[in-house]
């Protein structure tokens, strides 16, 4: 009986080590793909859009949580040169 328990323990420990290793080693392909996807023009659109909205004096496209502080946000028309 004791040997069965020891055997089960070893198997569980082995599986745990494998699972931990998998978690520690990042999947290179998935990470790279996620990075490339995040750099796509579609993903960048909202950031660029915010600047264009600020330049036109339109309200910012927020997630609906807060209104922008008047006078703090500046569009490209208000910016100084170098």
């Amino acid at each position, binding site marked *: 009986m004791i040997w069965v328990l020891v055997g089960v323990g070893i198997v569980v420990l082995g599986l745990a080590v494998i699972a931990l290793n998998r978690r520690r080693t990042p999947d290179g392909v998935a990470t790279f793909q996620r990075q490339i996807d995040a*750099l796509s*023009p579609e993903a960048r659109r909202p950031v660029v859009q915010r600047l264009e909205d600020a330049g036109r004096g339109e309200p910012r496209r927020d997630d609906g949580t807060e209104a922008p502080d008047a006078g703090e946000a500046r569009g490209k028309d208000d910016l100084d040169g*170098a």
Partner: protein
Amino acid sequence: MARDLAIDLGTANTLVYMKGRGIVLNEPSVIALNRQTGEVLATGHEAWQMIGRTPGYIVAVRPLRGGAITDFEITERMIRLLLQRVGVSRFTRPKVVICVPSAITEVERRAVTDAARRAGAADANLIEQPMAAAIGADLPIDEPVGNMVIDIGGGTSETAVISLGGIVALEAVRIGSFDIDAAIQNYVRREHGIAIGERTAEEIKKEIGSADPTGDDRQAEVRGRDLMTGLPKTVVLSPEEIRFAIEDVVSSIVASVIRCLAKAPPELSQDFLVRGMYLVGGGGLLRGLRERIERETKVPVRQSTAALEAVVLGAGHVIEHYEALKGMFMGARR
């Protein structure tokens, strides 16, 4: 809960992008201090107005030179004040991404991250300015094609070739638009015998400065202090004179672009002829610079539509997609 921030900590201007909100602050990187008490009297636009016009007990300084911190304590105070102004308190500590020149040393990197952490950031990561500029200028850097970005700032000029989300070739020099201003100051002192301040030199640059003949013959009337008599004096400067005065600085910038082109792999080099190079940064707004680079490299040069904001927009995009893009931070790729 604080909103995460992206900061373009430039030699000339500091811009702050807040996650989900956009650019919330854009001010000159200047701080005015009481020399006796060390108390901060003004920052940003207000402090910039004071440059060269302060009484003895006030000092208005730019704590960054050549993209690097020259005065750690003052920079930390400036960052702390900036963070306070965008709503960061000791109870709300955001993650911060800071854009820095790619050529800064390990010590300088640590100085920037330490300054940000001590100023109230929960975590501070750095991203290279040309990479941030390419993201912010909306270049297709996610594709396997050569994208070339030329970022000319106040203290540094960086040219990078970027493909598939990474820097392929890079050339950086610690020369920027402040060196153009200094060249104008030196020229006026040497040739006309009058002393002018850095703000006047900057105004001359904006008024009649150019890197290549533009066909505009407008002259500028400049007032300064006669070095011989000590009296106020007015001189008239022509665009040719200013072009001559800044020639060395402009040549160095163009030479660094050429060096970067030479470093690019041939497969990507051919892309530049079709896609062109993108000019960003305040220094890139110098009249005739785009044409001058184009003439000397025989590669089309395009001005980014968001030349002044490209870097902070790029860093802002990184903060919006923090988990996916954290591999792009300086040090993360080692």
